[in-house]
């Protein structure tokens, strides 16, 4: 098996999910300079709603594709409503408050949503019933599954759709104008409240899709899944330049790749038995006898890479890869 190609495929899969989630952070930040820390929980709720619907319908006579579609069609509007509600109830009243207030509110909303999910769905993960066969295709010594192909394709489609909306439509121009100067945009007749609410709703819809995809990739949905996923997607948004839409896409894919490659190779490279001179009569000779391994950092260090990258970006290029303005505010 070709490990490099395999990890690239895996990285593109998770990376495209990170990218879609990162768009939710970056769009909201671009317009109101708020880091919506509850966005990861919106993604989680999307996965939970979809999985609950799918699990409930799993025993029925409906064709599997219809069941999955029903799950998605329940999750997306639920999350859009949630995104709208968050903005309306939690953030809009604080629009003119000091910047720390909405940030703390965002963290509070994140905790509330997590515990609501705990109350509704319990502490056990919801498993994704194996409804649709997940075939595996071999390419160049690696394998790509049907789910992976679907995730990458759907993510790319959504990113393309969002780019079209933001860069090619009248409303998209209004979103970018509002992001640049909300007062002048209002002089042009743009209702800022509507644009801001729209960015939350669009971000939440993307988040719901991401939640369903992420859940089906790992086969489970859980009330805590939004936390680390959210932090990673946020790191991806910062990596690409927070507030920058193409940046979030590039940042997400890059983060997924770094994470997958790092996870794929960290075990090999930190296996002391593979270090020259360590085994074969060296200082590790005894422990490495009979082809044994002595791995310092295994693939359970997966989550380290995203945050290492976040730290590196913040130190070396705080405005992100594609970001033009360094934010002094967040």
């Amino acid at each position, binding site marked *: 098996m070709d490990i490099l190609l395999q990890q690239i495929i895996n990285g593109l899969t998770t990376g495209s999910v990170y990218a879609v989630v990162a768009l939710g952070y970056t769009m909201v930040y671009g317009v109101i300079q708020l880091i919506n820390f509850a966005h990861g929980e919106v993604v989680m709720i999307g996965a939970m709603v979809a999985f609950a619907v799918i699990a409930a319908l799993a025993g029925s006579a409906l064709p599997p594709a219809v069941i999955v579609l029903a799950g998605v069609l329940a999750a997306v509007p639920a999350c859009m409503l949630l995104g709208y509600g968050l903005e309306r109830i939690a953030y809009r009243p604080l629009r003119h408050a000091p910047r720390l207030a909405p940030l703390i509110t965002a963290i509070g909303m994140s905790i509330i949503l997590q515990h609501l999910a705990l109350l509704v769905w319990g502490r056990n993960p919801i498993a994704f019933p194996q409804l649709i066969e997940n075939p595996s295709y071999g390419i160049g010594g690696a394998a790509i599954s049907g789910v992976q192909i679907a995730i990458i394709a759907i993510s790319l489609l959504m990113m393309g759709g969002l780019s079209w909306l933001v860069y090619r439509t009248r409303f998209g121009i209004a979103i*970018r104008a509002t992001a640049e100067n909300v007062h002048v945009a209002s*002089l042009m007749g743009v209702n800022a409240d509507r644009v801001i609410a729209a960015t939350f709703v669009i971000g939440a819809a993307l988040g719901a899709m991401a939640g369903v995809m992420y859940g089906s990739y790992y086969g489970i949905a859980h009330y805590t899944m939004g936390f680390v996923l959210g932090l990673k997607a946020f790191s991806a948004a910062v990596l690409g330049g927070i507030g920058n839409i193409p940046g979030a896409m590039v940042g997400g894919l890059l983060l997924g790749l770094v994470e997958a490659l790092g996870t794929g190779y960290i075990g090999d490279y930190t296996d002391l038995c593979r270090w020259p001179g360590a085994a074969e009569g060296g200082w590790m000779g005894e422990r490495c006898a009979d082809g044994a391994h002595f791995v310092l950092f295994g693939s359970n260090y997966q989550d380290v890479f995203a945050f290492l990258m976040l730290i590196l970006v913040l130190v070396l290029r705080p405005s992100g890869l594609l970001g033009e303005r360094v934010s002094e505010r967040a």
Partner: protein
Amino acid sequence: MARALIEVLNLEVHYGGIAAVKGVSFAVEEGEMVCLIGANGAGKTSTLKALARLLPSRGEVHYGAERIDATPPHELIPRGLALVPEGRGIFARLTVAENLAMGAYHRSDKAGIAADLKRIHGLLPRLRERSAQVAGTLSGGEQQMLAIGRALMGRPKLLLLDEPSMGLAPLMVEKVFEVIRTVAAEGMTVLLVEQNAKLALELCARGYVMESGAITVADTSTNLLADPRVRAAYLGE
């Protein structure tokens, strides 16, 4: 006398506890071109911002038959009130074409928008040449032209202009004022705020002089240009 398109009564603007505008009253009639002159910090910009509802204010603002002193800012341009803000306020990351499209955001008459774009391209040919360029890369004068062109795309009845000459080279100021003159000659009602009193008074029929948040003199431009107080304070004589 024509009826007033905008009438302001006892307008007050406060920043925290500090009064920037202390109860000013004035009116601009339809088709008129009026200027508001005064030194830096006299409250001219605050007055315009309050009219465009970008600043909270007290007092009455009548626009046509309506009161607009509690109207949200985005509902003003559909009524025909446009402000070209101080410092131009162009969208620097949008292209010139997108900036102009934003000017017509509230309109849905595609044919009318296309016709207005053509007219504005004729009036300001530089904007056509630089259509696809990101607005932030334009020169200061071109940015001012864009800000005016964008406001005109909204087909306003009343154009509020805040310091259009600010930061521009004399030659460019000449061009900007030429455009304003053309627009006014076509019947647009204009309220012009300027620090450059001579330029403003030569362009407008009437003027108000603002000092420390209050209007101290109101007269025709001819009289103001001859007024020794105005000459001493604002015309550098």
